[in-house]
């Protein structure tokens, strides 16, 4: 029962309460700069998900007996090693998308996600819970990026997935990094309000 509850809370935290993008502010640089439309966002989340999952999976075997100074270098070196086959694979599968990622693809190696998740969960949780946490945090990140990219694309260009949807007015400034910061700030505030509203409704019902 306790196990179920904690699994439920891991999933709830990863997707909602501690969503990496809308609540915790992790790995937001590529989102601010690149997540301008759905197509770019799909490439972004593919690269992020694969690199982060395999890096964290391999990093989980690093023993705690190694001092933190060395551990942090090992995590990033694992990330850099995972990057090599992944970059070759993605360049083959989606060459234009990877080109558009530019320097942000290798920068996932030192993302706050890898550094913080590798330290915060591996030494406290079982392998099963750790895997669950990684998978749902990545899903939470991906869902938030895709949602953000769709909203940004609609507002900035009046299209959704490249299809014109006939917006009466577009705000092209949202395509710029400053527009990304401001829009993400407003969406994060809206997300918090929705979470609060859900909490209030639940409390009223109980």
């Amino acid at each position, binding site marked *: 029962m306790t196990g179920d509850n904690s699994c439920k809370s891991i999933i709830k935290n990863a997707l909602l309460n501690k969503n990496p993008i809308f609540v915790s502010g992790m790995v937001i640089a590529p989102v601010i700069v690149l997540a301008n439309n759905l197509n770019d966002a799909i490439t972004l989340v593919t690269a992020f998900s694969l690199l982060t999952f395999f890096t964290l999976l391999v990093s989980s075997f690093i023993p705690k007996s190694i001092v933190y100074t060395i551990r*942090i270098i090992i995590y990033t*070196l694992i990330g850099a090693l995972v990057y090599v086959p992944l970059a070759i694979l993605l360049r083959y599968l989606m060459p234009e998308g990877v080109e558009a990622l530019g320097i942000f693809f290798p920068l996932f190696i030192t993302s706050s996600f890898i550094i913080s998740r590798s330290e915060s969960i591996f030494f406290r949780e079982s392998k099963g819970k750790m895997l669950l946490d990684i998978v749902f945090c990545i899903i939470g990140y991906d869902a938030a990026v895709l949602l953000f990219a769709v909203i940004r694309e609609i507002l900035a260009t009046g299209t959704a997935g490249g299809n014109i949807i006939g917006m009466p007015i577009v705000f092209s400034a949202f395509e710029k990094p400053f527009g990304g910061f401001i829009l993400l700030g407003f969406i994060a505030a809206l997300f918090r309000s929705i979470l609060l509203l859900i909490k209030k409704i639940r409390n009223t019902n109980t």
Partner: protein
Amino acid sequence: MELLKNIMITAFIAVFAENTIFSRALGTSTLIIVARNRKNLAGFGFSVTYITAVISVLTYFADKALNANETGYIYTPLVYIAILGAVYVITLLCLWRFAPVIFGRMKKYIHISAFNCAVLGSMFLISKYCVTLADYFIHGLGIGLGFVLAVYLTAIVYDRIYSEKAPYAFRGYPLMLIYIGILSMAFWGLSGHTLNY
């Protein structure tokens, strides 16, 4: 005179016009963490600037070797991480051996000042835009100073952003993003962009 002019222009571009945070959002997550504690700001700023300056010189030599190889770009992150790791360990060892007091103060945040997107991103940026060793060094130093400027500009409003006077939905992280966005817009204007009417 020409050299001094070039140095000034490179430094200006790195600190203001192409500020890592405000133009490319590099290291935003780190900035949000570091801005919480104003006490560590000077130490953090010094260590970031020191690391970006030192690694920029080493990046120059690494790029020479990598550019000579056709598939070098695939291994670039691995080489850069190795450089970063070496600088990080050597710096910590030197501080521990020769300046234990400074080591005690800096060990809390030197890892976050070395392993973040702004620092690794600075290696990719200087590699893309710089040619000579002097360019690499000045740009690396400028990127470090630009990051410190961004952290400072964020830290000074931190208390207000997290104040209870701010509406709950916006308090903290959302307001921080909007604030950085407004600063980013100002820096974007500084680099000479015009609006299309």
